[in-house]
């Protein structure tokens, strides 16, 4: 399977995603340049973390207008897999490929920490190798990760099983203390209506080696393989 990793000029997790796919997963990966219109026949598109075009305006607000994003949107609308991590999640929301928005963290500080997230729906393209309710240890590193959507939209997301990850404590409780950024209902990741676009603030590509603290992110990538291959 071929992963296309979009490189905006300010992307800084593209390299980590590339290595997770090629070294850990053993699959093919290519970098997709933001000025291009060519997805190079990639099966899965990854929008990595970083600061796309500096994000001085609003995270992802300019990236959504980039040439490559027109192709990514078409890819998503065709039902093909798109994974947006951190800045990638912000861009997916700005591009309206996912509902809601990511606001400045409630504490008004950047937060870098290894947090726990609870798997809320283990029957998706991206989570089918996890157990429902399983706790994953995955790093976050962001200044604008506070997920927001109107209550009705949140109710709908929950009703449709589209909340995929929530921040939780060691006991699995979705407490306020476990919420690193003030996200509504501790939401850490959501999926699109048709289940092919996942956006999440935590970085699964940074949780692919026990040497670095956790390999809980590997199964997210493997889930895509198992579902698409099957």
């Amino acid at each position: 399977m071929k992963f296309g990793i979009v490189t905006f000029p300010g992307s800084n997790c593209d390299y980590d995603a590339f290595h997770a796919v090629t070294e850990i997963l053993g699959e093919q990966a290519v970098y997709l340049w933001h000025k291009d219109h060519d997805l190079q026949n990639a099966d899965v598109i990854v929008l990595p973390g970083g600061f796309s075009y500096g994000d001085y305006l609003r995270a992802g607000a300019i990236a959504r207008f980039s040439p490559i994003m027109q192709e990514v949107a078409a890819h998503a609308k065709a039902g093909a897999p798109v994974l947006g991590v951190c800045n990638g999640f912000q861009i997916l929301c700005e591009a309206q490929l996912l509902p809601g928005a990511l606001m400045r963290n409630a504490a008004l500080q950047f937060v870098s920490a290894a947090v726990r997230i609870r798997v809320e729906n283990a029957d998706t393209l991206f989570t089918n190798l996890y157990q429902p309710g399983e706790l994953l240890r995955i790093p976050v590193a962001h200044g604008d990760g506070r997920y927001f959507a109107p209550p009705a939209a949140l109710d709908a997301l929950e009703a449709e099983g589209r909340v995929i990850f929530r921040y939780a404590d060691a006991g699995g409780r979705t407490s306020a203390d476990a919420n690193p950024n003030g996200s509504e209902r501790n939401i850490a990741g959501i999926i699109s209506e048709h289940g092919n676009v996942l956006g999440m603030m935590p970085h699964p590509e940074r949780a692919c080696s026990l040497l670095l603290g956790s390999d809980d992110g590997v199964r997210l990538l493997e889930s895509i393989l198992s579902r698409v291959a099957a």
Partner: protein
Amino acid sequence: MSVVAPRAGDPVITPALVAEHGLNDEEYRRLVGMLGRTPTFTELGIISALWSEHCSYKHSRPLLKTLPTTAPWVLQGPGENAGVISIGDGLAVAFKIESHNHPSAVEPYQGAATGVGGILRDVFTMGARPIAMLNSLRFGSLDRPRVRYLFSGVVKGIGDYGNCVGIPTVAGEIVFDDAYEGNPLVNAMCVGLMHEDDLIRAKAEGVGNPIIAVGARTGRDGIHGASFASEDLSAASDAKRPRIQVGDPFTEKLLLEASLELIKSDHIVAIQDMGAAGLTSSSAEMAERGDVGVTIDVTKVPTREKGMTPYEILLSESQERMLVVAKKGHETAVGDILAKWDLTAAVIGEVIGEQVYRVTEGATVVAEFPGSRLVTDCPSYSPEAREAPAIAELRLADISAIPERPEERNPSWTLEQLLSAPTIASKAWAYRQFDSTVRTNTVIGPGGDAAVLRIRGTDKAIAVKTDCNGRYVYLDPRVGGRIAVAEAARNVACTGARPMAITNCLNFGNPTRPEVFFQLKEAIAGMGEACRALGTPVTGGNVSLYNESPAGAVYPTPVVGMVGLIESLAHVTRAAFRADGDTILLLGEMGGELGGSEYLSTIHGLVLGAPPACDVEREKVTIDVVLEAIRQGVVSSAHDCSDGGIAVALAECCIADAEAESGADADFSQWAHLRNRDLLFGETQGRFVLSSSAPGRVEAIARRAGIPCARIGVVRLNSSTLDISLGDGLLRAERGMMRRAYHGSIPGIMSRTPQHSAAAEDARVSAH
């Protein structure tokens, strides 16, 4: 030589103007002698920048020459943008530390941010990709609103810049002491990884080769930043805020990628950051290293605003700019690489055969210096060095006579005070704002003895750390200088790394004062002794003098940035106790030296006594014992014993890592001849707290080396206390107490007033 006439509209050279440019009479005479005429305003500006302390090291050069700088693994020593050492497998590490103290004192956010930007550029212009950032910070007491404002601003500035560029910030240290009240220290260190073959030096070569300005446009910001950094801070410093540059990390990221692509491309011969003193110093230094002449036309430099004079263009310190010497005929290829990253490139001059440094404004010559004398003719000074008698008195004070406070009858109370002292307490409040895991190499991040980064494609890792106890250096600069190096070496050794080399950042007061020059001289001598004994040469660094405010000079603070090499990932070792029943060992002496300790400072408010002795030869042997034991696989955990003594070290092994807490039983009754406070909180050097399931093997290694190794306790993973039996009692510290003290202290203080209102409050205070 050309005819150089004063430029219309420029000020006339007067003694007052010369003085304003920071040149003394002798220096001005030298300048006139070199030119054989009165300098132009532009020339005066150039020399003012190049001969500033910041650029010229005029007070430190003769002393720095005494430091050891070579070893078989050193590929590049001092004199370049950064030092470089080989780590085998054709790979090399480039690293350097630099100060941004003065800008941060006036504008903490931008000051710190641009400090990060500058040191990043120093490393990637060597051809290395930055892989880690460290910070060494000093502030006054956090009880003051202005200090909270400075602290939060500096932390945010460091975070916003490094996070955006995508370089993990992995280690450092933060110390709070009244000595830094008016003049905080902000030192940033960058570490980069490269193939040895990609090493490039900033040396202009090849007559006819074009000189190209790359990156951001030149504006009026930061003019005379180098000179500003070379004078004492005063009430007037705030008015110099416009001299502080504004950073743009997004442009830095583009410049980083474009520069690395250029270096790999074979289109260029040299590249250098336009840092302090901007275009002037970068062009003059590259010409001097290459022993060639250069000519630059300022009208070709892309500017941000119209009407900038040659003086302004040459002295601007606008950020995110590079100067490149390209191969003739490759100008278009260079331009194409920059265009890919949406950056501009402009040919602004060329390398010439004539031995001259020439600046033109179109066809008119506005500045011209013979050869590279504008760099080499800078005077160097060795002023009088004399210890301040008052400090000698402090050192000789009898600290055993200091009465104990009544609360100290319960040693757990004392431990609690020390664990919550901001200098010792967890700095997670700061480092949670730094992305420490991007680039996925961080094996041990902030909070450990040293940070550890794996080297992809090998089984190796590097360990990095900064250290300096300024209080020791203040009380005894020679000993303090030794300890700064030794402590950094111990810290990297705790992770399993052999100390390889250092970079240093010498933060001192005004060197024209004999007592300050004494500190500088002695501290450098002490560092040299330690570097020679430990086999860790100095590969470069930075000198920051004039760190003084109306309240006086800062503690002399020669910060050491250490790089160590871990030969196998299997050797990576952490500080936290790991296995129930492991024996706890103290490697080194139970000396009980309390002079200059955190105990005296925190419990008694005293900075007094002789700092602990530091036998550098013995430090080396002790470090070798630790590394041998780690290699043999008999060390479960290793932690350096420093600030707060062994009681604090044991507490940190129990609770510093919130994910790996434990308790412990320790027995110190064999040292009943020592007073409890000396025993528990003394800061004797050359010590490690190790835990092991095979203590006999560690003892055997230590015995062969002649280093004491005592069994002092047992790890109790499920115990809720750290118990230390003393000759006449027991220190029982509850885990909950230690956790709250250590992890809760700084967040508690920082929540007292919102930081933004702290700033506002402070603005009101200083307005009155």
